[in-house]
């Protein structure tokens, strides 16, 4: 059988191998505010926008703000497996001062999630597309102590 390709769910939103998993976004050269995903212009209304946006990779680790477990399949374009498997969703506060959402890998015991615990950015298979490619997304999992 042909080797399956791994493709990012969206190009340029996060690093792909061989780099370690990191989200990619912008830092405003003028006001220093961070944005994910990338923006066309700084979104801070008080910024003079005199300096260009810089492309940045975000810290891999952050703190858990909130979590839930989806027991019902979200509507399309979510690719829900049949039979459906519940999955964890989290909001993470990154040291750059923003919160980012992500799924939790299937391997994580969802009962172990706790607010304020340290989480890290990982890459996981989100779904397999019609051509058999593995579509990869960023996800967040507890940092193993």
């Amino acid at each position: 059988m042909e080797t399956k390709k791994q493709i990012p769910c969206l190009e340029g939103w996060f690093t792909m191998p061989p780099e370690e998993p990191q989200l990619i976004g912008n830092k405003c050269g003028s006001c220093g505010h961070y944005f994910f995903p990338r923006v066309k212009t700084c979104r801070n209304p008080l910024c003079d926008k005199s300096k260009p946006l810089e492309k940045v990779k975000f810290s891999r680790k952050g703190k858990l703000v909130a979590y839930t477990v989806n027991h019902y399949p979200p509507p399309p374009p979510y690719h829900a497996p049949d039979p459906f498997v519940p999955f964890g969703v989290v909001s993470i506060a990154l040291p750059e001062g923003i919160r980012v959402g992500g799924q939790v890998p299937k391997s994580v015991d969802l009962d172990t999630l706790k607010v304020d615990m340290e989480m890290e950015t990982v890459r996981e298979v989100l779904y397999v597309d019609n051509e058999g490619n593995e579509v990869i997304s960023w996800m967040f999992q507890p940092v193993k102590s």
Partner: protein
Amino acid sequence: MTEAAIVGIGIHPWGKFADKTVHEMNLEVAQMALKDANMEWNEIQGLFCGQDPWAGIQGMLAGNALAQNLGLTGIPVTNNYNACATGGYALRTAHLYITSGLIDTALVVGGSISPKGAFGTTRYDEFDETDLDSQRFRILGSANFTGFAMAAQRRMQQYGLTEEDLALQKVKASKFGSLNPNARYRKIYTVEEILNSPMVAYPLHLYQVCATSDGAAAVVVCNTKKAKKYTSKPVIIAGIGASNPQYPAPGMGGFGSDFSEVPPPNENDAGIKSTYKAYEEAGVGPEDLDVASVYDLTGAMEIQWYEDIGICKEGEAEKLLREGATSLGGRIPVCTDGGCTSSGECIPAQALAETYEIVTQLRGNAGDRQVKGARVGFSVNSGKLGNSSAIVYKT
């Protein structure tokens, strides 16, 4: 200063009406509101109509379709969509037209035939990275209930909200809903039934997540100086606010179709701004309210609103609910029509359904769910991307 009053109201029951179109429902409620106002359609000088996002171009031009059905009189027709605050923004615009002196009478309408199941998106390209709303479904697997569940989960950690509290809110809402002939669900639930219903997204069970509903509601607004011609019980719009979030925007990262946010001082920033704008304009505070309607898409949201509109202090909302202060006979009954909890949500009509209930209460026409002697009412909502509106009503 010119004031505006509500002199007519109309509503269609909330539910699923596969054999109807939004335009038929809009027409029904418009005629009902006009009749209630003892007003002829050709006396209306401006039509303000919520857009139905699920009904194509004709849904985007729902006001024009309604004007055609009622008979084209050449008046300005304003169509708007501001998510859950659509009806509130429409009413806000009508209010400005009247208080500015431009027109004396306005008809405000909103209706929708909603999709079944969770609200999704109307069209999408899976690889369009600028369509963040579609991407939140595809990548995060985040339906609306996902974000609601996370907010509830966080409140559990912060303030000790319990699953039993969430069930209590549903019990309260279902008691009100049982007394409202237009509610979709009329059954009174027990805590046990609610906690035994399937889990949707922890900690929210099926009976605690609002359904998607079809519905429509209409309001006739009039310069208060002319209101007596139409009704003996005008309800004055004493204060009205419509707001959107201020950067840094609210949210928890990807759950309102934006993938990341800078944490704001309060996540319901726009809802609070709308509320206090309306209070200020009306010259009232939360202690003056006799009856209120908040946006209870989940029990956790209703509980959060208690604090956001100031009827209790931060961290005391659970106590307010447990004491029964927001139930019938309590200090400040909330969502007396059963709210979204008992009817589900019909996005472009929901804010006007809130207005319908508060006007019914202030007229003293709410039957078995009547709040005795209600003179000052309030309704507020907040939705996708922070669209929000709030209204203070007085007799």
